[in-house]
Structure formats: structure tokens, C-alpha cells
């Protein structure tokens, strides 16, 4: 297995994620797609660390940080979605345009 394999996996995952984020109507779905993109990035970090600077563990450490932050972000995001649902009775992204200019 070479670095290219891991990178291919990462980009595939990212594309799935971005496709999902762009096309899903449900906000929760969008959130999940965003999580996919996070993980694509994590794979890349771990792979670069493993192949380019095997002596350290910086990449893995950053990946761990990202997971933590992503978890926190999802918590906040879901809370927001919940509040929006309660207030507007919908979770569809195109209906939520209260920040429109």
C-alpha cells in the first residue's frame, strides 16, 4: 500500500461528503456529510504522517483533535437543528433562510 492509495481513499470519501452536503435537503444529512469530509481529512493526515514523517505522531495527534472538535461541533449543530425544528417545524435546508440578506 502506498501513500496514493490512502489519498485516493481520502479524496473519494471527501467527494462523497461534499456531494452529500450539496445535495441533501435534510440538515441532519448535511451534518453527516460534513462529518464524512472531516474524516477524509483525518485519513489524509494520518497517511501523510505515516509516509512522510514516520518518526513523529503529529498527524495522528491532529486527527484526534479534529475528531474531538467534530464531535463538539456536531453536538452544537444538532442542538441548533433541534431548536430550528422546534421553532419552524422543518429540517429542510432550503426552508431555513432567515439569515438571507
Amino acid at each position, binding site marked *: 500500500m502506498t501513500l496514493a492509495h490512502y489519498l485516493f481513499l481520502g479524496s473519494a470519501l471527501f467527494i462523497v461528503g461534499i456531494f452529500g452536503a*450539496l*445535495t441533501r435537503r435534510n440538515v441532519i444529512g448535511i451534518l453527516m456529510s460534513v462529518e464524512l469530509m472531516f474524516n477524509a481529512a483525518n485519513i489524509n493526515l494520518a497517511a501523510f504522517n505515516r509516509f512522510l514523517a514516520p518518526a513523529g505522531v503529529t498527524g495522528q495527534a491532529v486527527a484526534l483533535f479534529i475528531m474531538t472538535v467534530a464531535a463538539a461541533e456536531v453536538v452544537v449543530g444538532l442542538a441548533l437543528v433541534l431548536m430550528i425544528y422546534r421553532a419552524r417545524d422543518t429540517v429542510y*435546508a*432550503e426552508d431555513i433562510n432567515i439569515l438571507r*440578506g
Partner: protein
Amino acid sequence: MIEHAFLIPLLPLAASFLILFGGPERKDSPLPYAGIAAIGLSLWISLRILFDAWSGALPLPYEADWSWFSFAAELRGRPFIFDMRAGVLIEGATAVMLAVVCLVSLLVQVYSLGYMHGDAKFKRYYAYLSFFTASMLGLVVSNNLLVTFACWELVGVSSYLLIGFWFEKTAPPYAAKKAFITTKLGDLGFFLALLTIFAYGGTFNIVRLRDAVAMGYLPELVLTLIGLGLLAGAMGKSAQWPLFIWLPDAMEGPTPVSALIHAATMVAAGIYLVARCYFIFAASQVAMDAVAWTGLITAFLAGTMALVPYDIKRVLAFSTVSQLGFMMCALGVGGYAAGLFHLTTHAFFKALLFLGAGSVIHAVHTNDMRQMGGLSKRMPVTFMTMTVGSLALAGIPPLAGFFSKDQILEKVFERSPFMFAVLALTACLTAFYTFRMVFLTFRGEERDTERFRHAEESGGVMTVPLVILAVLSVCSGWALEHAHAFARLVGSGPGLLPGAAGEAAHHIDPMVMATGVTGAAFLAIGLAYRLYCTPDLSAALAWKERLSLPFKVLEDRYGFDAFFLGLVDAADRLAGLCRWVDAEVVDRIFVDGWGLLCRIAAELSNLFDALFVDQAVDGCGYISRDVVGANLRWFSLRGRVQEYLLYLAVGVSLFSILR
């Protein structure tokens, strides 16, 4: 005694300040006596000096001076500290002049005790009088022309104060101002002469200046200019043509003041100045001629003007002007001693006449001779003394005026028979108007019985000075003429022109001339007797009818007053113009206009700012918001997060592709 000469002016000066600040104004204030005492002391010193000089015990000239101040000066590009020294210079003429001034001052001050008695400003009057005397004496003794000028001005200001002494009335302040300004006009000439003297001679000291002139350091043109400047000063002070206009008005002052200032002393200052600076005039024929002609014109014009007024003091005033013209003319033709001689004798008899007139005025409370007449019965002493003075003035032998006038006429004849003719005619006029005055005042019938009944002979303090002056008017001419004593004392004048001093151009037998002129004077007196020594004035009035035009001209004083009033008017108009120019042109157009220009520029900037700069800024906002922003709105501002994300993704992809 001579070493105390500097005290002569200082004593009256001290007295004047003592009188002014020494105590309150009271009826019985003893302070005026301080003035009399001071001038008495000065007189004593002056007389001692005079007699010492006369007897030859005292070598003249005597000079002593002290440093007054020093200033950084510069001559011909060389700076140095110039030591201005003030002091006394006593020559023969100075000694005589000192004695005359002190004597007349003393007599006038004594006389004033009676004349001014009961006046509300009695004390102040004496302070002014002493101050005047001090300045006059300072003028006479000073060896420094700048100090002379300073005293000259102080004499002017004390004359101002004394003419305007009764300032509660309207006329005296006006007359005082007129006198001051007119003399000041002449003083400008004196001032410029001083500047020229310093610029070319480098000194104000008379003796040094005389040396410098003698050595020929000063070119003749410069000397001429200096001479003319000094003459201008003398014209003002000595009331010479054409600046004589102030003297008749100056009669508004108290009569003793007129006697002292406007007859015997101040008006003599101009003559004295010319005599003192004779070396300058003597070096320039033009200046000399100017002096002579000024004197001649003055003597004649004033002599004619004295024929018409009915105000007793005005007659005397014109007469004074005329006599001063005689002196001036004498100096101008080289008669140095003759001019000064007449100055001396004239001081006595003219002071006498004025004081006599004062005595009359004091008695009848009017100046108008038409309301007098027949007063000889009520005021015998005044009448007698005034007659003596009039005879002296008319030049009747053996009184004082005869000798001095005779000398002048002799000198003038040597120079030019024409001038002699004019002066001789004026002498006849003098005799006529003098006795016109005497007859109108004292002879004939009383014309105003009310005033006549109240008229009384003045008291002793007033008549004694009259008598003393009368005695002097009788004796002084003879005594001073005797053995040429006066001429020996004053000398023949320093450094005369060869032509003027040496052989005379014309000769006349003195006896023939004296007899002729005296005879003519008697004729004139006789004519005056015919016309004015009558119960009524019908003969005189008839003449006036017949000669109305000449009378009118004389009463208008040949229009000189009008001329100078016109000058003042013109000056006023010029001043008004300047004021207008200053306010409307310089200030409004130049200064405010500048301000207005700035304001306009500011407004323009403001307009530019609003129209262009600010509009440009607003335009940028407009373009970005209303043009660009509004058009972008349809696809950018719908609030769809996923669209934004799409743009982002597309953008990032594009960038990564196009990199």
C-alpha cells in the same frame, strides 16, 4: 556772579512748581510772592552781570555747560557717543536781554497783583507766569540750540496756557490754540534747521557752530537753508508776515500777559534768535535779504492794520507786530546793534502801553475805545505814563523810541532808499495810530458816561510799575545811545558780510533824516488830533465812509486770516479724505477684500468638496450597492446555505484548476 548765571532761569522754574504744587488755591495764598521773589533774584543776578559787562569787568562771551544726556550718534558713517551739553552762553546781547526780560517780568508780576486780584485762579496764574519767565530766560541764556528750541517750545506752551487762561469762555481757548499751531508751523522750520545744523555741523553748541561756520565747513547753500529755517521759526514766534495772524487773537489773554509775552519778551524771542545766530545769516546774502524783506513787509502791513481797530489791545498788538518788523528789517540789513537796541527800548515802552491799557480796561471793563474817551480826568497817572509811552513809540525825541528807530532807519537807508521810504512811512503811521489810540481813550468827551463815572485810577501796585516803565521809556534810549554804550556792549554782530558791514551804498546826513522823520511824525500826530481828539467821531467816521474799501481790506487783515483758515479747512478736508480712504479703501477693499477673497475661495472649495469630492465618494457607494450589488442579488442573497457552499466548491475547484 556770572557763575550763577544758570540760576537765572532755574529760580523762576522752581518758583513755578512751588506755586503750582505748594498749596491750595486761596484768596490770600502767599505763594505768588514766591514767584515775585524768584524773579527778583534773577533780576538781581542779571543786573549784576549786565553792569559787570558794561564796566568791562567781565569779559564776554562767557560760557559754561554741563552734560545733559548722551546718545549714540553718527556722522558721515562714523558712530560715536554724542555728549549733549546744556549750559549758558552770555554775550552782550544776552546780558541785555536777560535784564530786560527779568525787569519786565518783575514789573508785570507786581502789576498783576492788582490786576488779577480776586481771580479764581490767581495762584495758577502766577505759576504759569513764572513758568513762562523761566522758559524765556532759558531760551535767552542757552548755549545749545537744541535747548534753545526746547525752551522756545516751552515758551509757546506757556503762552498757550496764558492766552487760554480764562478757558471757561469760548474765545480764549480758540485763540490759544491758534497761537500755538501758528507758531508751531514756524517751528517746523526751526526744527528742520536744527536737523540740518547737526547733519552738517555735528554740534548744537552755538560757539562751536560759529567756529565751524567761520572755518567754512558749511556750504553756503546749507547756511541759506538753515537761515531760512531759523527765520521761519522767528516768523512764528515774533509774529512776522505771514504768520502774524495769531497775535491779535492772543489779546484774549489777561492784559499783563499781553504786556509780558506779546509785547516785551516772547515775541522778541524770534528777533533774539536771529541775532543769536547772526553768524549764519551773515554768511548768506539770501537769508539776510529774506530777513530784511520779511521785516519790511511785516512792519508796513501791520502798521496799516493798526489804523482801523477800535479794540485798544488790538491796536497795540498790530503796533507790536509792526515794531517787530522794524527790528527784523534792521537785522536783515546788517543793523545788528540797531535791531537789538530797538528790541530793548520797545520792550519798555510797549510793556508800558499794554500795562497802561490794562489799567484802563481794569477801570472801564471794556476794550472798546469807542466807549472810552476823556479818561485823562479820571486816571491822570495812567494817562501821563501812557502818553510818555506813546511818544516813545512814535519816535519823538528825546524818548527811547526815537534813538532806536533812528538807528534802524539810518541802517536801512544805507542799504536801500526804497526800504527806507517804506519804513519811514510806517513810522509816520505809527505816530498816527498811537495817538489815535491816546486821543480816543483819554481825550475828547466821555462817550459812555456810565463807564466813565465808575472809572477810577488803579492802585499803587499797578501804577508804580507804570511809572518805572515810563521813566525807562524816557531815559533808556538816551542812556544807551550815550557814547555808543549799547553798540559797544552788544558788538556790531559777529562776522558780518563785507558789503553789509563795510562801506554803505547810500549816505544821508543823520541830522537831516532825524529832523525829517520827526517832523513827519509830528504831522501824523496832528492829523490824529484833528480826526480823533473831538467830542464825537464824526470826522473819523466820515473818512471811513469815503475810504470804505481800504478800511474793509484793513479790517479783514488783508485776508491773511481767511487764507489760513482756508488752509486749516483744507487740512481738515484732507484729514476727512484720509479717514475715508482708511476706512473704505484700505480697510474695506484691501483688508476686508482680502478676507472676502479668502471667504470666496473657501466657499468655492466648499462647493467643490460638495460637488466633486463628496459626490465621488457617494458615487462609489452607489455603484457598489445599487449597480453591482442589486444585480448580484438574485443569485447571491437567497439564504440558501447549500448554494453558497456550491459556489465555494466551484470557486475552489476553479482556482485549483486555473492555478
